[in-house]
């Protein structure tokens, strides 16, 4: 019995909502994994902030070209029909609303769509990268995340407590337990693990879960 999805399984689920031909930016780290799970017959075009559209998977170790990297500074390869451009053009794509989807990680997401994913507070070195641009640029901003923090606290909240990345920007959250839309300032449950009751899910969610139509079973393959 699945008690929670692995990161790969969360990424798989998020990938199912990406249409053929969509232009997609995946945040660095965990979200990059979404690219691996494009459904057969669909081809998305992946954008990376540092100036590449249409890149493919990582090259074989030892064959890296360090002038060809993604925003996470990992080596990538090109697909036919790729293009290079400078950073201002790259963020024109982002800010100008040309990306169909951005999928990002999160420290916290609030029911009003606020996202916190860049700073855990005043300690340490702050680093923001392109996250603040992406959340106000892509037509659809989705989050993939474990449903709770490592010590079991809710990451889905009434209001974020950490410094915000963006205001009212997230519209869908793929978690290790559920798929939740943000609609008019409310968390609306769309899918949940069949092994989990609504009340169990509500208990690990920091804001009220609303229902708007049937809740589907969140079923993903073993990966």
């Amino acid at each position, binding site marked *: 019995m699945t008690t929670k999805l692995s990161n790969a399984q969360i990424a798989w689920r998020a990938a199912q909502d990406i249409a053929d031909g969509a232009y997609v930016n995946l945040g660095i780290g965990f979200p990059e994994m979404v690219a691996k799970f494009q459904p057969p017959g669909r081809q998305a*075009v992946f954008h990376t902030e540092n100036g590449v*559209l*249409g890149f493919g998977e990582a090259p074989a170790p030892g064959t890296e070209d360090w002038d060809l990297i993604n925003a996470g500074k990992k080596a990538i390869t090109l697909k036919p029909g790729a293009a290079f451009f400078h950073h201002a053009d790259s963020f024109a794509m982002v800010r*100008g609303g040309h990306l169909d989807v951005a999928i990002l990680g999160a420290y916290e997401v609030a029911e009003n769509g606020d996202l916190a994913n860049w700073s855990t507070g005043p300690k340490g070195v702050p680093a923001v990268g392109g996250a603040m641009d992406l959340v106000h640029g892509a037509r659809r901003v989705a989050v993939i995340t474990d449903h709770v923090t490592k010590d079991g606290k809710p990451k889905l909240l009434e209001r974020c407590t950490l410094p915000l990345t963006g205001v009212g920007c997230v519209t869908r959250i793929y978690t290790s337990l559920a798929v939740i839309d943000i609609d008019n300032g409310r968390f609306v449950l769309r899918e949940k693990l069949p092994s989990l009751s609504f009340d169990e899910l509500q208990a690990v969610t920091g804001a009220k879960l609303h229902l708007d139509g049937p809740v589907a079973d969140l079923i993903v393959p073993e990966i």
Partner: protein
Amino acid sequence: MDKRIASLAEAVADIPDGATVMIGGFGGSGAPIELIHALIDRFLATGSPKNLTVINNNAGNGHVGIAALIEQGMVAKMICSFPRSADPRVFTELYLAGKIELELVPQGTLAERIRAGGAGIPAFYTPTSYGTDLAKGKPVAEFEGRAYVQERWLKADFALIKAELGDHYGNLTYRMAARNFNPLMASAAARTIVQVSRAVEPGGIDPEQVITPGIFVQGIVEVPNPQQEEVLNRANAYYPEVSA
């Protein structure tokens, strides 16, 4: 992913009455003559589209391309920097008769407003036009002791542009100075339709040499050996052709 459109007629079929349409080119260079003429064909056959707002650096020359579009009465308003040309009679007569509206924009401001539209920048400041009639009614602000005018982004429902190579994903190159406004307009329209002089497979354009990445393009139609406005005008051409 495959953005090819089979015909010019199909390429311009969705442009509605009242649309704002950016049309690429500077004078004749980079002007998508065949797309414009396809739009005229549609208007002559169906009565649409009309009441268009057209954004271009100029306001047509002679009786082809944008001049022909204006001559058919399809254009309610021009947004441009330089509505003069070797033969600007079509626009001039309608303008002086009060039958077409003109928003005059300095050329660099026009380019930057379009770029801003594509880049998600709703407003910016420029020194251009400060203290002139073209700045009237616009907010001004001082930065580091110098005065600037606030200008707003410019977006369109459609862009009709001309490119040299285009792959199926919409990646484009341009030919010499025919580049001009075309890449900017591609980025600033909800739907960008491109006439390419040669369509190639994805991979047929070196990624280093792509000028407009396909993300800015919604449709491409191949028009080999496109007409040049300058050549047509030197031949005193009309569109549609005037029967002798």
